[in-house]
């Protein structure tokens, strides 16, 4: 019986095996990248807001502390979006006629809330608590990025679980002294620029981080990577 397939088919069949592996790998890699892309995570993406509020202007320009508006960040799981009243504390005095601020004034007059788009949005099965992170020396901009340089706000991090675990598995990489938590200018210690803590100067993050972990009684990695730390 004659051969059904020509010899040259052998090459095609071998190539197709390789192609399947390669294509599969590529599809997997593609999905892997897609999953982490800003399209999925909204990282770095601004969203429509009722008022183009500029953190850059209010934080870097005017030097207003984070906690003037985000009042419950040290006591609650939410940092809180300020009520309209907080805006009007100043804007009943300055920029009282600015067209940009009309939605704020309207809200104050009518009693209807401003409706903001949520930027740092965790899935509903994740329970994050701001107060304990502040208390343990996690800086605002460690997660929220250079807010003082954002004319329009966006999420600086992916907020994906691998990102959370990066710190929960080695918190010493990111901690800073408590009094630096709200400091937007804070930089991790380097040789030229030491950070002093507890009467000692530290020139590298590793040793500072370990000192902070001990001082602030951080729980073990086994504790803070337990599922019920965030999921319940």
């Amino acid at each position, binding site marked *: 019986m004659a051969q059904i397939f020509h010899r040259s088919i052998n090459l095609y069949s071998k190539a197709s095996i390789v192609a399947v592996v390669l294509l599969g790998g590529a599809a997997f890699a593609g999905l892997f990248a897609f999953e982490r892309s800003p399209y*999925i995570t909204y990282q770095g993406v601004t969203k429509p807001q009722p008022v183009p509020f500029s953190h850059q202007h209010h934080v870097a320009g005017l030097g207003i502390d984070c906690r003037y508006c985000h009042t*419950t960040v040290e006591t609650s799981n939410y940092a809180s979006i300020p*009520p309209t009243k907080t805006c009007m504390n100043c804007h009943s005095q300055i920029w009282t006629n600015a067209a940009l601020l009309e939605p704020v004034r309207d809200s104050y007059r009518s009693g209807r809330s401003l409706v*903001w788009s949520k930027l740092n949005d965790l*899935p509903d099965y994740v329970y994050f608590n701001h107060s304990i992170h502040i208390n343990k020396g996690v800086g605002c901009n460690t997660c929220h990025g250079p807010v003082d340089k954002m004319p329009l706000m966006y999420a600086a991090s992916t907020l994906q679980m691998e990102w959370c675990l990066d710190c929960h598995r080695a918190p010493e990489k990111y901690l800073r002294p408590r009094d630096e938590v709200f400091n937007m200018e804070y930089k991790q210690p380097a040789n030229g620029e030491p950070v002093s803590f507890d009467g000692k100067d530290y020139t590298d993050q590793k040793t500072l981080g370990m000192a902070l972990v001990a001082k602030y009684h951080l729980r073990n990695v086994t504790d803070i990577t337990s*599922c019920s730390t965030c999921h319940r």
Partner: protein
Amino acid sequence: MAPENTKREDTCPGKKKTLDVQSLDAKALDLAAVREEIASTSGPEYWRSLEELAGSDEFREMMHREFPKGASEWLDSFSRRGFLQTMGASLALAGMTACTRQPLEQIVPYVRQPEDMIPGRPQFYASATTLGGYASPVLVESHMGRPTKIEGNPDHPASLGASDIFAQASLLNMYDPDRSQTPVYLGETRSWKNFVDQIRTRMAGQRAVEGEGFRLLTGPISSPTLANQIQALLKMYPKAKWHQYSPLHRDNVLAGSMLAFGQAVETQYRLEAADVILSLDADFLSPSFPGSARYTHDYAARRNPDAAMNRLYVVESVPSPTGVKAEHRLSLRASEVEGFARSLAASLGLGGNAADSRFLRAVADDFKAHAGSCVVIAGEQQSPEVHALAHAINAHLGNVGKTVVYTDTVLANPVDQTASLRDLTQDLREKKVDVLVILDANPVYDAPADLNFADVVLNSGAGLRLHYGLHQNETAELCQWHVNAAHSLEAWSDGRTYDGSVCIIQPLIAPLYDGKSAHELVAALMGQSTLTGHDILRSYWQGQAKSADFETWWRKTVHDGFVAGTAHPAKAVTPKAGLPPLKAAAAADASTIEVSFRGDPAIYDGSFANNGWMQELPKPMSKMTWDNPAWIGPAYAARKGLKSEDMVTLEIAGRSVQVPVWIQAGHPDNAITVFLGYGRRRVGRVGNGAGFNLYAVRSSDAPWRTTAKITPLAQTYKLASTQGYQTIETATITRPVIREGSLAEYKKKPNFAQEMEETPERNVTLYPNVDYSDPNYNKLGYAWGMTVDLGACVGCNACMIACHSENNIPVVGKPQVVVGRHMHWIRVDAYYQGDRDNPSASFQPVPCMQCENAPCELVCPVGATVHSSEGLNDMVYNRCIGTRYCSNNCPYKVRRFNFLLFQDWETPQFKMMRNPDVSIRSRGVMEKCTYCVQRITVARIDSEREERAIQDGEIQTACQQACPSNAIVFGNINDPQSKVSKLKAQARNYSMLAELNTRPRTTYLAEVRNPNPQLESAEHAVEHG
């Protein structure tokens, strides 16, 4: 193992099959065969259902299954094509579930934020709920203005922090989407203003005739403000009449008080001082008994075998949780209880003839030995004579002032409610009524059948019939006007607790549908429609407050939730000399069938019928859900060849109703017990059509017991009892899952419970041998554990509803319960022991055991259930893919699986009700108790922020907080000083299935009973007094 007889066609989803509950009927239980089997085989010492006792094949199969038969099979009608389409789509999307893009969400901050509001932290407000007129003091948890959970008010002596199923479940009543949402006139939506205009003209007409044609019908009222308003109303319309009726009235209690003292008094018990308690058909440990939260607390406080234990005798006609707790229980028919009471009075020297029996002699001797520290409690359904006898015995033994206290009545104007309703019916019949206002009562549904209330009201010619209530119910249907009520969480009011102290009912939320409070409605009847409930309440208390600075006084009162110093003081009353006269034919002929009426243990008089939590709550004794079968005793069933789920016709005084029967162990012979509250037509989507309406055979002259004729029908009716589900396989004789002993045994061998078990050595295991006290593993050193005191647990189910509410547990519906898919994270098992006609019984609450060597964890392919460093068996819902391997491997059967989308994701009211700190689980996800990890986390974060350790008692699990008997204790077992550690160190402490080496964190304290040595030898013998 039983043979796996699941046939292929059962599991093949392509096979067309509807979810027909009747077809799931396992081979029904044949009681005659059961009796034979009992004679030939030795069943387990403890049993939960009669099937188990008989060791039937069906039962054995069920025990070996992960879920009851049907739970894991696809039974809904579904075509092969539809199945393939769904599966194709599922496969395509299976890997993509993690890739979903977050939907855009919005943040809506306040315009002006209230001062004390911290978003993310709940606030607690003191308030009260009412049941049958009696208030229960509560604290309501509020998240951003939404009430989400009800707890007891720890500062009030009637609660001491505990609550009951009715208080807990009233939350769901408020969010019930089937509530009436507007005033209605002849079926048309109207406004409140429109109503006020109409009523003004009507009432002006009544004013002219001094209210001659005006009748007000209310339920029992303890609210001082409302009572005051009604008095003012009656002054304005002097010829008007105020009638009161609630179907679960306490007429006999009142009549007994009149009989004994010639005046209406409230009887309170001081169970902490009682060494010997006798209940005459009084179910005082059940939540519908006024003051039960406090009574349960005081009773349970005396169940510690290391201190002076009390002793409980129960003489009862209907098996009840109180009977379960009894050291000695005498099962009598309801009509025979009076005879027992008379004999007891006689043998205590009060005169009359005593029929002698061992039981009676033992009680009498015990009473004589404990004069002044014993108490007789008579049940609400017993005759006035029994109440008078109880008063006489208590007075004779010098208990008054010690274990019994008499005070003024809690209800503002106690009347014989049956007579009151009869008068109203008479007036309606004689066409004397022009304006009939029905305030929060539902007589068309629940009035005695002989009054024909529906016909009478329709033919009364009353020009204005007004119904005011939460639902457009059966009564609203026959009224021209209906006004939607505000729930007690939505309106200001007040009410008295069982001890007379006044609680302020504080609203937690503005009325969802602009409902009005009863105060506002009554004010409108007086032409004061502009007054708000708050104005009315405040101005009443302004007149009552004894403080010069009313504002400070009022703020403190509202904050505390009760008016200090309003508890009724003890009243000196002496019972009339001599015993109440014997009524002819007090005891029915032994051969007739006696029928007893009872309120339903879960849905009460029917007012909780549209409450899914309550419908699905397994009732304490039968574990029945969604239905109200009539109870018969095993002896009667065997004689008549009746089986559970058989339909019978129940004929009472010419009226008949068809109802299924349920064989209840411990039920007396020749008697049948029926439960009121079911069979409603117009209450809402949950309650409509569930169960059978037994009001249809209740008559006004015999509201609690009468005689009946039972005719079996050749039909069956599928019931959804969870009694046989989640049965634990163990060597029940040598290592029973519940353990108990007598006080004498305990004194001899305190660790009798531990001796029954063989715990393998700690290192004999393949599980990682974790040391939870090692700071390198668990830095803060917390290891959470729990003890459940079986001696204290009275099976009131408060823990189950608390858990439902706290953990956003879905309601699944009757067909799903039948196939074993109910979702309760904590269940209360009832175990029976001994003779079926008078068994002793025990309750055992079973939450997740949080095993240190957790069998569920090893088999999860995706790591969705893993251990936390503090020893919790975490359940990660978002990881779960629904293999159910964990549940299959759980020896305690505490895991629950969302077979379908049980959770309601759409109804806006339910979204508001949920606890925001607990994930909402979807279809295909396993769920279970995690010791309220959300509460642990909050306490841990707070303590870490404040740089201190979590105090013992700072964290209470929801079940623990609700428990009136303090049976559940939770805490850190690494701290030897914690309450839970001390309890675990007690000799009574034992682990369920310890031989499996699962090392459960939840352990039990064995029950110790304090039987009377005089009766001990024949403890379970049925005697007739």
